[in-house]
């Protein structure tokens, strides 16, 4: 019985694709035999695999769809000259960056990553030259994080390009770039960037540990990595930040945070984060503190509106009518006179219709998407009110809620609050304001209990650090933000710069 159980366990483990391994054998001294092994055992049924024999002396293997044509031509020309004139010793001085491999496991991996492998007759080593050439998208302005005064470039899908975009903003040897491969089948490059001496060593080693524990067959997006490394697996809100903007990621690295670039995705992860950092937009730092503070307050208000506005309407009209100012109560009552449904049903109806429209708008081509929005918002809304299906007030409420949800700068946070909104609608419909305050307290306690790489999610508000409040809802002048955020750096006394306010004072004195 025990034996059977153990066997079943073994079977279960070997069933994972991530457990597939390449058979590791040493290469042959004969080029032909190596070609035969490659084309039959490892890369069978791969029509883009090219195997070329040059003057019976060398054998070149590469996958033509992922290599640079010009470089291949150069290598082949060089080999032809070498074989006919100087002999194989000349290969030791190959004018290409290369490495040597003796085993098929490494050679096959190199071939699938866009390298050219050169086999030499009577040699136990093969030469591997990296000539990968994968087509990449040009740098464009991030669509989801547009800015008015900030830089226009955004990340693309190539991790090397993305690293260079960050490096060009931090020309310093303290910027550390640590690369690793994740995904036993996909072998995706994942790069961790941080500012040595500033980023907390504890957090850096914790992130490294979490990354090394990931065991998946393939990594398609940074979101997959995020779900493996975040502190609370079932958290409804984003616990790891993600951005398409190099300036934002560089600024976060400068604050002692850690960035994670995943090859094949333009969204770079960063952390630790707090919920308040997700309500900040790049323009907050490209404009005056007054407008930044005002906009942050607007966003904060929008966050609450997107969460609570429909439930507030339901609670007031269902349970606490006496609290509505008389003039407004009369106007709402007049609007609802012909509506046969309770406030819950009409709000849910319009909310669901709006979710339909939002999804339809995303999937359809831009031109038709606009038409759908107009048809949905104007025609259906107007018709629903005229038919006495819903009251005009609900249309206003749901519209303001929808606009508010678009104000939240972080898409994932907006989506989380969209889901939570439905819970609040039901709480308000069942218990009125009591249900709402109950829900708010549960949500507040839940958010307080969350951590992002050990950093409290609602910091600096819960727990309260008055010194950290200079860059949350209010944006204080930059000279007052010399200190690093608490917890993200090892040395609490460390400052970013000597804080010197009022640099223009001297000049004024000269004028006097």
């Amino acid at each position, binding site marked *: 019985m025990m034996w059977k159980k153990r066997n079943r366990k073994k079977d279960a483990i070997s069933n994972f694709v991530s457990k597939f391994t390449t058979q590791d054998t040493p290469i042959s001294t004969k080029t032909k035999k190596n070609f035969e092994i490659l084309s039959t055992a490892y890369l069978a049924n791969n029509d883009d695999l090219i195997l070329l024999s040059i003057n019976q002396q060398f054998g070149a293997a590469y996958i033509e769809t992922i290599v640079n044509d010009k470089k291949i031509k150069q290598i082949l020309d060089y080999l032809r000259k070498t074989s006919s004139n100087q002999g194989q010793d000349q290969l030791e001085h190959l004018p290409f960056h290369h490495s040597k491999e003796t085993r098929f496991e490494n050679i096959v991996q190199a071939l699938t990553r866009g390298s050219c492998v050169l086999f030499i007759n009577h040699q136990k080593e093969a030469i591997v030259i990296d000539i990968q050439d994968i087509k990449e998208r040009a740098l464009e302005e991030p669509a989801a994080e547009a800015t008015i005064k900030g830089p226009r470039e955004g990340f693309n899908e190539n991790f090397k390009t993305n690293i260079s975009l960050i490096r060009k903003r931090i020309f310093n040897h303290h910027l550390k770039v640590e690369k690793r491969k994740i995904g036993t089948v996909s072998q995706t490059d994942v790069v961790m960037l941080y500012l040595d001496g500033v980023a907390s060593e504890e957090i850096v080693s914790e992130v490294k540990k979490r990354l090394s524990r990931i065991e998946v067959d393939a990594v398609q997006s940074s979101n997959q990595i995020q779900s493996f490394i975040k502190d609370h697996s079932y958290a409804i809100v984003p616990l790891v930040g993600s951005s398409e903007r190099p300036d934002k990621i560089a600024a976060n690295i400068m604050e002692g945070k850690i960035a994670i670039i995943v090859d094949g995705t333009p969204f770079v992860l960063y952390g630790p984060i707090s919920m308040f950092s997700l309500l900040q937009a790049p323009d907050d730092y490209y404009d005056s503190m007054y407008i930044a503070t005002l906009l942050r307050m607007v966003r904060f208000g929008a966050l609450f509106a997107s969460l609570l506005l429909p439930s507030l309407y339901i609670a007031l009209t269902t349970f606490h009518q006496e609290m509505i100012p008389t003039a407004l109560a009369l106007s709402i009552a007049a609007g609802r006179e012909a509506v046969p449904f309770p406030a819950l049903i009409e709000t849910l109806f319009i909310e669901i219709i709006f979710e339909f429209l939002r999804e339809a708008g995303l999937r359809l081509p831009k031109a038709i998407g606009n038409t759908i929005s107009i048809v949905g918002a104007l025609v259906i809304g107007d018709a629903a009110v005229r038919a006495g299906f819903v009251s005009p007030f609900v249309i206003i409420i749901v519209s303001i809620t929808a606009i508010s949800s678009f104000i939240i700068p972080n898409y994932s946070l907006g989506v989380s609050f969209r889901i939570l909104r439905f819970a609040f609608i039901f709480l308000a419909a069942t218990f009125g*304001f009591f249900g*709402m305050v109950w829900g*708010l*307290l549960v949500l507040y306690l839940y958010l*307080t209990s969350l951590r992002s790489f050990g950093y409290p999610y609602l910091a600096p508000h819960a*727990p309260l650090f008055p010194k950290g409040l200079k860059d949350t809802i209010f944006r204080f002048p930059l000279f007052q933000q010399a200190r690093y955020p608490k917890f993200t750096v090892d040395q609490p006394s460390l400052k970013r710069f000597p804080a010197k306010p009022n640099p223009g004072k001297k000049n004024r004195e000269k004028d006097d």
Partner: protein
Amino acid sequence: MRITHGQMTALVMLVLLVQIYAYAPAYMAEHTHQSLWIPLLLSIALSAIVGWTMLIVSEHYPNESFVSVLHKVIGKFLGNIVAGLYFIYFFILFIIHSQMIVTTFKTLFLPRTPMSAILLLVLILALYCSFLGIEVLARASNMVLILLLATILLLIFSVIPEIDPSYYKPIFPQSSDGLLYSTLISFSNYGQIVLLSTIFPFVNHQKEKRKRSKVFGGILFSCFLTSMVLVVEIGVFSPFELQRLQYPTVELITLIQIGEFMERMEIFLVTIWAGAMLLVIGIFFTVSCLTMTHMLKKPKESKALNILLIMIGFASILQFVPDTTNLITFIYGQWVYLSLIFHAVLPVLIGLFFFIRIKVMKHGKS
């Protein structure tokens, strides 16, 4: 995970800020009329002495749970009995607060909603708080405290123009009748300062210096602020009218009017109070569970135990204090006297044992 002195202070302040102005003003006005300020001051002074004693005892044994402090001060046998009594005390406070918020909302805003449904919601939240632990509650307490303080201050400052100074006359009472009972009422609220002893072991003593004066400053501020609400109520309603109001503070809120548009504000301000009250219920239940866990010498909190306690709580509320009348009868008929055991008798006993033990130890050393 540990909490700071500030968070501990916030937790105790919250506990002291939510209850006294709910039902007490009517009963205190009935017994002391306009001289309500005297029992308030007396009870604050008594609470400060009790709190100070408990804080000194706790500070002597940092990082030790309340139960093990009791073991060290009064011995294992007596310590277990006192710990058991304090568990019952915290559990009763949890029941009182739970039913207080349920009956308030049921009476004022949700007359058609079944009481058991509202109660269930409250108890679910208390259970969730106990699962999260005291550290999370402490982290959350600061912002809730700020919000509640702002609300109470807004209330006080908004109704000051409505005060009629003649209601306070004569300032000193002509007889001491009812003074003792009124003092007991307010002491049954402010005496909850003993909660300090159970939260103190969670403070991070390695990272933080002792902040005794700041802790006490905060706590006394909350006592005086809530006393102010009661004093203002006398000035606004008169002692005679105040005796007849079941929810005088809610009546006080109805006097606030923002322009001509916002005519009634009570639901908004009561909702903020409800948020703080729900957190306090969570604190009391979590502390009850912690005390029980420490008494049973379990290394970790058991979720099954917490669920069992919440079920006992649900049954107890439905059985013993099913409505407002029963709750008020229990608080002002029995609890006012019973709470003396936990707010005065036991702290005095613990304090005496502690000082004797310290003296003996010092004598032994010399």
